[in-house]
C-alpha cells in the first residue's frame, strides 16, 4: 500500500514540475529550447512519448490556465491533491473475496451469451473491489501476544496477562469452582455471548458469561453426556443418561425426545437447523429442530460414538472411531462419504477449521495430526508426550489441545512444523471440554473442578457481521434474525462435500444422465420396444402367421445390423489400403523384416 502511494506521489510531483516549465517567461524560453536541443542531440533515440508531451505543452501554452481549472486537480487552497483517485486496495484483500476462477470466453462465444458473461464478470469484479474497499474501514484489530527477548510466550501466566490488559479484558480470565458435579462440558452460543455448562453428575447452567448474569441453573438428577445450544440462547439440548432433552433458557423442560437414546455427543448445524447426535449404540441421528422431525437415522456400525465434530464449511459430520478411522457423514447417505485411516490407535478427538480445509485429530497413539480434507492428505504429524484428549480450533486458526490437566494452545499448526506451544495453562482438574469463544480472545475450559475461562490473545475474529452473529443484539433483533434465518433454512438434502456445487453448471454428459435415469427408474425408457405382432382378423393371426411376421421383423433387424457392419468394414479396409499405399511408396528396404 505504501509503495502505491509513493508512486502516486512521485507522479504528481513530476507533473507539477512539467507545468512549471511549461509556463515560461519570454527570456527563459530561448534558453530552455537551446538546452533541449542540446539534449536531443546528445540522445541517439529520443523517447516518442516524451516528444509528444513536449509538443503538447508547447501547443497549449495559451490555454494552460483554463485546462488546469477544468481538470480540477488543484484544490481550493491551490495545492494539488497528493493522493489522487480512490484509495489503493492491497491485492490480498481482493483475493479474499475471490469466488472461483473467472469464466474463460472461448473464441466461439458470441452475441447475447458473450455480453451476459462479460457483464456478470464485470459486476463480480466490482463487487469484489467494493467489498475489499469496505475492509479498510473495519473498526477492530485482532489481538496478539509478543514475548520479550528472553522469554517465551508459552511461559507467560494468565495472571500476568490479566494484569497487563485493561479491566474489561482482565475480567475474561476467571475460574468457577464447581467441585461437586464435575467434570464439565461446555458450549458457547454462535455470537459468543452465552455459555452453557453441563456437569457430568447432572448440573446444567447457562449464563451470560461477560456480565456473569445467570439465566438458569438446574440439576437434572441424571448423568449429562453433552450439552449444546440450539440456534438462539433461548433453547438448549442436553443429552442425558437415557434420552435427549430440550430445555429453555429458564430451565423448563420443553421436550423429551425418546427417539434419541443414549446420546453421547451432539453438534448443532446452525444454517440447517439440524441437531446431529451420536449415540453409544452407534447411531448417528439428525433432528430438525425447526419442525421437530427426525431427518435421518444412520447406523454407522462402528460401535460407541464418542468423538464427533462438524465441518462448518459444508455441514458434514466427522466421527472418530476406536479403530483409528475418521468417517464423514451427510444425512443423505447411509454410507460414509469418506473413510480415512488417521491413527494407529483409536481417535480421541477431532476438530475442523472454519474454512473446511483442515482437520486436526488426536489419537491414542499420542499423535496429533493435521489433514487437508479437500485433498484428503496428511499435512503434519506431531508427537505429544501424553496425547491430546480435547481439541478445539478458534476462528483465527489457533488450536487448543488438552493433556490431562494442562491446556496448550498452538499457532498455525498446518503451516511450518510447530516446536513450541503459543500458550499453556494448567487447571485444577482433568480437562473434559474445551471450546474457543467466537468473536472473543477467550478459551473456555471445562474440567473436573469447574470451569476456567482463559485469555488467548489473537484467537477470535475481531469484526463480526451484525446480520449473522451479533453479540450486542437486542431481543427484537434476535427475533427478527430468527425469522429470517428460519426462512432461509437450508434443506438437509443440500448437504454435500462441496456446497458451492449447487451454483455450477451440471456438465454431466447425456449418457451419464441417461444411465442415472435408468438406475433411478429401474428400466430404460428409451430402449427399443420388443416387437409384438398386431392382432389381425379373419384368421390371419394364426400362430404360424404371427411367428412368420416376427421372423420377418427379426430378419429385417438383422439385415440392418449386417449392412451396418459391412459398411464399417468397408470403410476400415479402405483406410487400411490407403495406409498401405502411402507406406509402400516411402517404405525402406528394411521394412520387409517388420512383422
Amino acid at each position, binding site marked *: 500500500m505504501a509503495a502505491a502511494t509513493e508512486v502516486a506521489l512521485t507522479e504528481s510531483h513530476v507533473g507539477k514540475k512539467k507545468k512549471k516549465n511549461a509556463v515560461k517567461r519570454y527570456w527563459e524560453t530561448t534558453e530552455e529550447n537551446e538546452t533541449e536541443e542540446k539534449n536531443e542531440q546528445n540522445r541517439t533515440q529520443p523517447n516518442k512519448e516524451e516528444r509528444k508531451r513536449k509538443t503538447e505543452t508547447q501547443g497549449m501554452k495559451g490555454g494552460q490556465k483554463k485546462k488546469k481549472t477544468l481538470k480540477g486537480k488543484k484544490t481550493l487552497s491551490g495545492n494539488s491533491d497528493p493522493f489522487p483517485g480512490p484509495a489503493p486496495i492491497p491485492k490480498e484483500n481482493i483475493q*479474499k*473475496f475471490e*469466488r472461483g476462477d473467472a469464466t474463460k470466453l472461448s473464441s466461439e462465444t458470441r452475441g447475447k451469451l458473450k455480453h451476459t458473461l462479460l457483464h456478470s464478470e464485470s459486476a463480480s469484479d466490482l463487487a469484489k473491489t467494493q*467489498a475489499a474497499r*469496505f*475492509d479498510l474501514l473495519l*473498526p*477492530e*484489530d*485482532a*489481538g*496478539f*501476544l*509478543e514475548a*520479550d527477548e528472553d522469554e517465551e510466550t508459552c511461559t*507467560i501466566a494468565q495472571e*500476568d496477562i490479566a494484569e*497487563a*490488559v*485493561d479491566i*474489561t*479484558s482482565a475480567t*475474561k480470565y476467571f475460574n468457577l469452582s464447581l467441585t461437586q458435579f464435575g467434570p464439565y462440558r461446555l458450549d458457547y452460543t454462535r455470537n459468543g455471548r452465552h455459555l452453557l455448562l453441563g456437569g457430568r453428575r447432572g448440573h446444567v447452567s447457562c449464563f451470560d458469561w461477560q456480565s456473569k448474569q445467570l439465566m438458569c441453573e438446574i440439576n437434572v438428577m441424571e448423568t449429562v453426556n453433552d450439552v449444546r445450544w440450539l440456534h438462539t440462547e433461548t433453547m438448549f439440548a442436553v443429552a442425558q443418561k437415557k434420552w435427549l432433552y430440550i430445555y429453555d433458557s429458564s430451565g423448563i423442560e420443553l421436550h423429551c425426545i425418546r427417539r434419541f437414546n443414549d446420546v453421547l455427543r451432539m453438534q448443532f448445524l446452525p*444454517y440447517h437447523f439440524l441437531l446431529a447426535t451420536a449415540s453409544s449404540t452407534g447411531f448417528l441421528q439428525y433432528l430438525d429442530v425447526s419442525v421437530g422431525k427426525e431427518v435421518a437415522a444412520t447406523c454407522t456400525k462402528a460401535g460407541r460414538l464418542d468423538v464427533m465434530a462438524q465441518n462448518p*464449511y*459444508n*455441514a458434514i459430520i466427522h466421527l472418530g472411531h476406536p479403530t483409528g478411522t475418521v468417517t464423514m457423514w451427510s444425512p443423505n447417505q447411509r454410507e460414509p462419504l469418506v473413510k480415512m485411516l488417521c491413527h494407529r490407535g483409536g481417535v480421541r478427538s477431532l476438530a475442523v477449521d*472454519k*474454512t473446511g480445509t483442515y482437520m486436526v485429530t488426536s489419537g491414542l497413539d499420542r499423535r496429533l495430526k493435521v489433514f487437508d480434507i479437500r485433498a484428503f492428505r496428511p499435512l503434519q504429524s506431531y508427537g505429544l508426550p501424553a496425547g491430546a484428549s480435547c481439541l478445539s480450533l478458534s476462528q483465527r486458526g489457533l488450536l487448543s489441545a488438552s493433556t490431562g490437566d494442562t491446556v496448550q494452545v498452538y499457532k498455525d499448526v498446518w503451516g511450518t512444523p510447530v516446536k513450541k506451544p503459543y500458550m499453556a495453562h494448567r487447571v485444577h482438574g482433568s480437562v473434559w471440554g474445551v471450546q474457543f469463544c467466537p*468473536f*472473543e*480472545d477467550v478459551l473456555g475450559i471445562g474440567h473436573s473442578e469447574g470451569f476456567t475461562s482463559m*485469555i488467548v*490473545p489473537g484467537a*477470535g*475474529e*475481531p*469484526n*463480526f*457481521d*451484525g*446480520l*449473522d452473529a*451479533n*453479540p*450486542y443484539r*437486542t431481543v*427484537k*433483533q434476535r427475533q427478527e434474525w430468527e425469522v429470517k434465518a428460519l*426462512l*432461509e*433454512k*437450508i*434443506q438437509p438434502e*443440500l448437504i454435500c462435500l462441496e*456446497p*458451492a*456445487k*449447487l*451454483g455450477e453448471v451440471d456438465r454431466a454428459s447425456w449418457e451419464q444422465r441417461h444411465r442415472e435415469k435408468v438406475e433411478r427408474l429401474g428400466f430404460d425408457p428409451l430402449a427399443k420396444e420388443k416387437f409384438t405382432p398386431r392382432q389381425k382378423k379373419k384368421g390371419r393371426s394364426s400362430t404360424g402367421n404371427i411367428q412368420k411376421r416376427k421372423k420377418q421383423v427379426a430378419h429385417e433387424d438383422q439385415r440392418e445390423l449386417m449392412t451396418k457392419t459391412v459398411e464399417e468394414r468397408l470403410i476400415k479396409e479402405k483406410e487400411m489400403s490407403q495406409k498401405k499405399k502411402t507406406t509402400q511408396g516411402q517404405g525402406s528396404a528394411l521394412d520387409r523384416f517388420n512383422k
Partner: protein
Amino acid sequence: MKVKVLCRNPDDYVRETTKDVQRVPRNYDPSLHPFEVPREYTRALNATKLERVFAKPFVASLDGHRDGVNCMAKHPSSLSTLLSGSCDGEVKVWNLPTRKCVRTLQAHEGFVRGMCVRFCGASFFTVGDDRTIKQWKMDTPGYGEEEELLNTILGKTVLTGIDHHQKESLFATCGQQVDIWDEQRSSPIRTFTWGVDSFSCVRFNPVETELLASCASDRSIVLYDMREANPLKKVIMSLRSNTLCWNPMEAYYFTCSNEDYNLYTFDMRRLDTPVTVHKDHVSAVLDLDYSPTGREFVSASFDKTIRIFPKNMGHSREVYHTKRMQHVICVRWSLDSRYIMAGSDEMNIRLWKANASEKLGVLTPREKAAQNYSQKLKSKFQHHPQIRRIAHHRHLPKGVYLQKKELQVMTAARRRKERNVKKHSKPGSIPTVAEKEKNIVAVVK
C-alpha cells in the same frame, strides 16, 4: 511482553437512544458467511414460491356494454382513458381508476368495426357496418349540450378497420381495399388494391411512420409505403391472419395473429421465414398488442384465454383466464406497460396486471430493493429444476388443457408420418422444411 486482547467498546455497537436505528456492523468476509450458494438457492426458491402466491392478476371488470366488445382504443396521452366499441354500434369511454363509464355514444348502426384516437388525443375516429367514418370530440359535451360529430364520411364499401398516422392528419381504413384519407377531405387520397379480397386490419408503423401493413382475407399480409403508388410486397400464409401489430421499438418487426392458433413475428425485410413462431393457444388468435417497451406482447384468443409472450420466445410466459371470460375479441396493453385490457364476447372489459405478482401502489425504497434482489435471485437460479417447475406451472381450464394434450398428439402423429414418408421414399426426393417455414406459402413482390 506486549499484549493486546480484543476488547470492544459496547458504545460503538449499541445505539445511543431508543430513538436511534439499531447499529448493524458488517463484515463481508466470505468465511463468516458459509453456505452462500445453498442459502441463496433457498432464498430464490422462497421468492419463486411467493411470486406464485401473490400472482393475482385480475384487477377489475368494466361492465356496461349491451353487446360483445368488438374493438378498443388507448388514449395516447391519458392513461386513465379507454375507449371501446361494441357489436351494437355503441361506443363507451371509460375512466380506468374509477372503473366507470364516463360517456356513451350510439356511434353506428350495426357493429363498430374499428376505432382509433388521433395522435394529439383531441378526437377519435370510428368506423362501422353502416359504411361511415365518424370523427368525435374526445371531450365530454357540457350539461344540456348534444353529442356533436366533428366529421362524417360516407364510404363506398363496408369498412372493417381504421388506424391513424402518428404525426400527420392522415388515416388509413381497410375494407375491400386499403384507403388513405386526409382528415380535411371526403374522398381517399390514395387507394391500394392487390387482387380482389377484403382486409380485416390495417396498421401504421409507429416508427417508420409512412409504412403500413394490412391483413387480407386471402391469407396474405400486405405491406405498403404511403409514398408509393403500389403496395410493397405480401406474404401468403396457409391460414388467414386476423390482426397484426408493429413492434413499437423495433421498426422492422411485426407480429400477426393467425387462425392456425399461432402468432408469427416477421422481419419485414425477410418475409419468407418468420423470426419466431409463438405457439400456445389452442384456438384461433383474434387480436394482439405490443407492450410499449416492445419486449412483450399480449394475445387474445377464441379459446377464452389471453397469453403474454416475450417477443423472441416460442411459448408464453403467462396465461390469464377466468370462468366468466368468453372468447376474447380485442386486447390492449396500457401505455404505462403495467396493465392489460381485454374485451370479450360476454360484454365485459377486463383489466389485468401485466406482471401477475406485481404489488400495486407506491413502494418504499426498501421494498423496491428487496424486489430487485429477489428478481435477480430468481433469474440466477431459474434453471434449477425445482424452481423452474414452480415458476412455470400455470393452471389451465380443463377444456384448454385437454385441447392442448390433443394438439400435442396431433403434431406428434403428423411428425411421425412425415418421418415415415421420408424414410420410405427415395433419399433426397422429399425436401426438409423447417418448422417455421411450414405455414408460409409464398412471398410476392
